[in-house]
């Protein structure tokens, strides 16, 4: 078994046993959030790093998932399990629709249009009081049913649920990218879209798929976020969220999917750790990390394992 597989297995086991290893509500809350970020970063990487369609609007899909889930549970009285589905589907659908016009855009323009879309989502969330609760957001909706009564028990259960759902989602995305024709198409599109089209690859279809899957993943992360924190507000759609996600992906390694997962967990941990030094320094550190990594380690942590021109396009 390759070193990477062993590493992943060990990580998975540790992650699953965390509630038993470190039974503190605070630690588990942080761990839950880290898992959410990991899913968010991986889903962004699928579209932007792996398929090369750089989006600056990921926060928008995150917010759609969060608001979708919260609204579904609060207003339609749906079970949170269905809420997760609702959030993911809503974000995925909007992502698919956004994918159509985005087909024509490349590079800067795609990034800016997606940024604009996310801003629109944020503005709607902030100003449409009846639908979204305005600046205060939505807060009185229930979380998963059948949770233990104790605070610690609740946190443990929520953590495990989040880990399970997010883990499954990331695994599914990895499978899609590494083991199916979709993944081959994504890589071809990233390398040279014109050539891919000439080779008969249906770039339109695959790009739309990437948009849909990526945004659904972000929506799922948003829904999980909603249920663990029990509050959604317009802040989740801010550009700061996108910035953080991109930082995590760059740190971990663009285009690898598992790199951003690692990057998210590490960077989140760093960020929370620095919070003890001073609330503001964590963002300063994130900014520094992004700049330093982009210049000196553009392939992120994942790139440290391999070197040489052959590894520039990473996918193992």
């Amino acid at each position, binding site marked *: 078994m390759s070193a990477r597989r062993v590493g992943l297995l060990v990580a998975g086991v540790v992650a699953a046993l965390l509630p038993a290893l470190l039974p503190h509500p605070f630690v588990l809350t942080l761990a839950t959030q880290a898992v959410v970020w990991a899913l968010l970063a991986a889903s962004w990487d699928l579209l*932007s790093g792996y398929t*090369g369609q*750089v989006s*600056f609007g990921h926060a928008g899909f995150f917010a759609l998932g969060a608001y979708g889930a919260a609204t579904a549970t609060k207003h339609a009285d749906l079970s949170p399990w269905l809420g997760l589905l609702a959030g993911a589907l809503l974000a995925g659908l909007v992502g698919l629709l956004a994918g159509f*016009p985005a087909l*024509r*855009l490349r*590079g*800067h*323009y795609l*990034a*800016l*249009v997606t*940024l*604009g*879309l996310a*801003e*629109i989502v944020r*503005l*709607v969330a*902030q*100003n449409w009081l009846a639908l979204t609760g305005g600046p205060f957001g939505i807060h009185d909706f229930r979380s998963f049913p059948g949770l233990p009564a104790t605070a610690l028990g609740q946190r443990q259960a929520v953590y495990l649920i989040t880990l399970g759902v997010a883990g499954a989602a990331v695994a599914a995305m990895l499978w899609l990218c590494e083991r199916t024709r979709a993944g081959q198409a994504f890589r071809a599109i990233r390398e040279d879209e014109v050539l891919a089209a000439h080779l008969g690859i249906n770039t339109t279809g695959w790009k739309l798929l990437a948009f849909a899957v990526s945004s659904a993943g972000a929506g799922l992360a948003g829904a999980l976020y909603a249920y663990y924190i029990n509050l959604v507000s317009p802040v989740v759609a801010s*550009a*700061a969220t996108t*910035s953080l996600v*991109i*930082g995590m992906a*760059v740190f971990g390694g663009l285009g690898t999917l598992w790199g951003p997962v690692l990057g998210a967990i590490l960077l989140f941990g760093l960020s929370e750790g620095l919070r003890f030094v*001073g609330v*503001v*320094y964590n*963002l*300063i550190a*994130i*900014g*520094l*990390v*992004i*700049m330093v990594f*982009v*210049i*000196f380690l*553009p392939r992120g942590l994942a790139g440290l394992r391999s070197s040489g021109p052959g590894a*520039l396009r990473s996918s193992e």
Partner: protein
Amino acid sequence: MLDTVLEFAIQGVVLGGLYGLFAVGLSLIFGVLDVINVAHGEFFALGGYLAVGAIALLHLPAGAGVAGAALGAFLLGLAVYPVLIAPLKRRLGRRPAGPLYLVLTLGLSTFLQSSLLAVAGGDYLQVQSYVRGILDLGVTAVSYQRLLVLATALVLLLGLFAFLRFHRLGLAVRAVAQNPDAAQAVGIDLPRIFALTLGLGAALAGVGGALMAPLFNVYPAVGFPLTIKAFAITILGGMGNLAGALLASFVISLAEAFSVMVIPSQWQNLIAFVVMIVVLLLRPQGLLGRARTR
């Protein structure tokens, strides 16, 4: 009715001047370096803070405050190319950059914004108007402060256009934007022009921040909403096209100002983004077309 329309028109025009300072700088940087400066808003914020610092803390006159803001932002902008962009360029060599420059300036934006927060705190700051008094136009009135903002913006932008059009160094800047290889062939030092361009763009944004300080609040994140709106404006005008950026600034600001007649005011900000998306889909080259680049 006329007085309301006039009031909106004035508001739109003044805001347009502010947007213009910001968007023209952004467009200039893109035209010359082919880099979208996501951190542009932080130059604006820095300008605001420098003005507040000079005027409220050091009790310097308003003019010194604005000049200090311009200088401070200029120096920071000058540093961005050699410190951040040049190293990335060197490492990339001939490889396509993809999203890397965008991500780099995004990191810079995060770093600068949170640094401002760390140094200056998160409070909303403000200074008094640089000029007091109101100009009575009969039907309506406009404060001298707002007129000052507009006048300064127009003078500076005119100065920039004249510089680019007539001065030898300005010609060099345009040359680099149009054909960097040929610019090198005639002896133009590219890194110097890149740094200068970033400095100029930053200075314009910094002045904008200083001018805005008496009208709105200064806080670390004040520049970011403006940055993303400026993206919309530059796309509307044609990326890299300075006259287009200026025109689009007024189009957007007037649209926003008059929009309150038909939609609730909190939806004003949506206009720019909706326009941007429509433009990108229907006429990506913008109103005046993309400036011809490589």
